[in-house]
């Protein structure tokens, strides 16, 4: 079956510059004198160090545990001693720092005892496979570094139709995936089979840009060893950005990932070829992710690919390619289209570092001037935009800070591939404007949220104060009223109150008076025997006496109390 290839819109042909780094086989980079291993190498929460300073560790030993679900553990890249756990700069466009473990290698490179999965991987259920992958600290090696096991958990009602391995590697200069496919084709295929098993994916496709002839051949040869596997090796047109996830999915399936959505929503999971190889090593050998292929290229004497331990500083790699650091104009991590220029040469390689690109100002394709002309509305940017946006409009609105308009023109669908920027005759740093607008919007959102919370808090505070005030006032009023009624004599009431009430009170008083004058008229006092009469009189006497005694006692006690 020959699969139909869908050509995504736009894109540009950029100078490839790939062949300079592919003529040597991949060698292991030298173990540096100090490894700096950041805890923040992936998307999600930074890992938490589980070792102490001074502790000796073996190669592959767990040194930091995952913090939460979207996170990944980190393992010692070689054997040695932990010398420091503190903040160090990490390869990030902002030049930020993250907690890092510094490991002084003992150059013995002794492995910890690894526990390979001795049974056939098909015995493991998807959840067990995910655990192995998670514990090996595997994250997406293509660049974003999303924890791999999370992608392998599509949810109960999601069917995975396509599992696509991304071997496009469309950025100029980068060849680490190319070399991996040439040299470790079998590992990639086996890793793919494991992932396919974990995902129960219907189709498994490895998509490679047509310029990587050797890699395509190597994979095709390896696939033949798995005749029942039905893996497709797909050569796709060489055009930047063919390796961008959205574009790759469209190329292979003809389907578009919904805006703001995930590939799994259209039944697709995408993984980098390097990730598949890492999965294979984790399952078959129990090896965690502690090294990766890195392309060191650009204006270096011997551009090449090296297998580099995580935590190796860039300057070690640069000197291995025969260059001294002080000639360097800029260091780019990643490719020249989407890579980030770094602030320092001492930053370490992390799990997502695919390429260290050195610019000494020799190659003319690098943009050297910041000067730009006004936009002449030529529309080249819109023509090459792989997302079919209107970069020109985005630029005007971003520049004038009309952020709502920029969002109306779907600013957040921009993948920052840089095609528009690349072709712009006026040399306008378009992507820079979009990033600026995005970060402004995020900032505004954060501020709105913050001020919303503050406002709510303030409103509640006001409400509480008012409620308390009201309660207090009410309490006060009640108390006052109670006191008033107690103090008021009947005369006062008479004076103050309405005539009806006064009449009632007067009537009651009259009745009381009458009762006092008449005395108590006992009942059943007719036809009494003299004996009975005598008893009653005696009782009356006693009562009277009691009343007198009690009243005198009360007076006494009142006197005493005075």
């Amino acid at each position, binding site marked *: 079956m020959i699969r139909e290839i869908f050509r995504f819109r736009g894109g540009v042909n950029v100078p490839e510059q790939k062949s300079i780094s592919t003529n040597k086989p991949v060698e292991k980079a030298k173990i540096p004198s100090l490894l700096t291993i950041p805890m923040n190498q992936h998307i999600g929460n930074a890992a938490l160090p589980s070792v102490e300073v001074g502790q000796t560790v073996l190669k592959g030993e767990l040194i930091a545990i995952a913090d939460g679900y979207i996170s990944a553990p980190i393992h010692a890249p070689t054997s040695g001693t932990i010398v420091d756990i503190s903040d160090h700069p990490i390869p990030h466009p902002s030049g930020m720092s993250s907690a890092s473990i510094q490991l002084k290698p003992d150059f013995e490179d002794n492995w910890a005892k690894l526990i390979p999965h001795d049974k056939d991987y098909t015995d493991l259920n998807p959840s067990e496979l995910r655990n192995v992958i998670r514990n090996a600290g595997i994250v997406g090696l293509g660049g974003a570094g999303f924890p791999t096991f999370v992608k392998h958990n599509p949810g109960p009602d999601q069917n995975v139709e396509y599992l696509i391995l991304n071997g496009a590697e469309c950025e100029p200069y980068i060849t680490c995936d190319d070399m991996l496919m040439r040299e470790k084709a079998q590992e990639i295929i086996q890793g793919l089979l494991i992932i396919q098993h974990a995902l129960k994916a219907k189709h498994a496709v490895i998509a490679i840009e047509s310029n990587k002839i050797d890699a395509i051949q190597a994979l095709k040869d390896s696939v033949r060893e798995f005749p029942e596997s039905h893996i497709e090796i797909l050569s796709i047109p060489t055009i930047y950005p063919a390796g961008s996830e959205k574009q790759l999915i469209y190329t292979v399936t003809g389907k578009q990932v919904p805006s703001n959505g995930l590939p799994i929503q259209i039944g697709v999971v995408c993984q980098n070829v390097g990730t598949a190889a890492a999965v294979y090593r984790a399952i078959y050998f129990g090896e965690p992710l502690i090294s990766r292929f890195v392309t060191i290229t650009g204006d270096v004497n011997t551009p090449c690919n090296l297998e580099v331990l995580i935590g190796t500083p860039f300057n070690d790699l640069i000197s291995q390619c025969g260059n001294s650091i002080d000639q360097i104009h800029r260091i780019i991590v990643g490719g020249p*289209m*989407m890579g980030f220029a770094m602030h320092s040469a001492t930053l370490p390689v992390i799990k997502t570092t695919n390429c260290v690109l050195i610019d000494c100002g020799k190659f003319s394709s690098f943009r050297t001037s910041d000067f730009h002309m006004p936009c002449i509305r*030529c529309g080249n940017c819109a023509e090459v935009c792989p997302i079919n946006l*209107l970069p020109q409009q985005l630029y005007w609105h971003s520049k004038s800070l009309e952020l709502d308009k920029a969002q109306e023109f779907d600013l957040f669908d921009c993948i920052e591939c840089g095609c528009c920027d*690349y072709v712009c005759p006026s040399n306008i740093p378009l992507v820079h404007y979009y990033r600026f607008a995005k970060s402004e919007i995020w900032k505004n959102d954060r501020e709105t949220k913050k001020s919303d919370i503050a406002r709510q808090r303030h409103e509640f505070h006001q409400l509480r104060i008012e409620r308390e005030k009201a309660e207090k006032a009410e309490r006060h009023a009640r108390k006052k009223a109670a006191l008033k009624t107690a103090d008021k004599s009947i005369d006062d009431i008479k004076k103050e109150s309405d005539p009806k009430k006064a009449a009632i009170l007067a009537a009651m008083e009259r009745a009381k008076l009458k009762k006092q004058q008449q005395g108590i008229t006992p009942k059943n006092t007719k036809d009494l025997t003299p004996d009975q009469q005598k008893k009653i009189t005696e009782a009356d006497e006693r009562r009277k006496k009691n009343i007198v005694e009690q009243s005198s006692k009360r007076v006494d006690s009142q006197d005493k109390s005075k």
Partner: protein
Amino acid sequence: MNLYTPSSPHFHSQNNVTSIMLTVLYALIPGITVYVLFFGFGILINILIAVVTALSCEAIMLKIRNRPLLPFLTDGSAVVTAVLLAISIPSIAPWWMIFLGTAFSIIIAKHLYGGLGYNLFNPAMIGYCMLLISFPREMTTWALPLSLSENYLGPLDSFAFSFFNVTQAQIDAVSGATPLDYLKTQLGLEKNISQIVNNHETFSLFSGVGFEWVNIAFLIGGIWLIKRKVIHWHIPASLISSLFAIALLFYLIDSEQFSSPIFHIFGGATILAAFFIATDPVSAAATVKGRIIYGASIGVLIYLIRTWGGYPDAVAFAVLLLNMCVPIIDYYTKTMPYGHK
């Protein structure tokens, strides 16, 4: 060590504004060459005056507006405006008209709107319209093609026409109406087309003598521009096909009252407009759909103004009217981004 840390992308193509403008100028060379062969050297003198004026005005305005001189003087945009205006003006027009038109284009239509990239209207067409309205007689006195004129205007004659006082008789000796102009006047006298065309030497097989070849040469230059990806096919194609379609419709209704579609396309400035004037990126629509609407509307307007309006040719007015509509066209032809279906 201080590393250079600009934002990505770090690569940039070799595209620049100057090379775009230069390519446009190269594409005009065949048309101008044929023009010189048929109508004399006047056009070259006009171009020279216009370019010198444009660059001087550009420099003065940049200075006043406190902008860097070098990048903007060398971007070629002022030269393109100057050349387009110069070839739209009759080749025997006096120098001060070229000067006035160019200065108006650069100062009013370009710099007062904010300079390169910010002008709402096509500067060359603004200059042209100002001249057409202010000096209608000079602007409609065109040199006769070589085959119809006794004397071919060489460099010296052209220089004289441009810079010295020439008598009306001298002008009349070398000038005449353009085919479009003549046809319009004659149709106004209630003649029908076959009478007009058969009885006048200015009409050739499918348009006007000389004009047809100039237009074919401009067409070749325009197609080369599309091939070089300096302009897109959308505007020329939609402009020419809409003009062709509407002309064909009326031609089929009454071929004695309405001239043929081929005449409309090769008779006047249609080709120049379609490939070089309406395609000015700054003042044209920017989206693909928008460009097609923009081009097609210009085509229709050219026909309407030519047929029922007051002017024999209508390119400048049609282009300017559509320049006004560009913001709204762009707004309503927003694209559907990936993942929004």
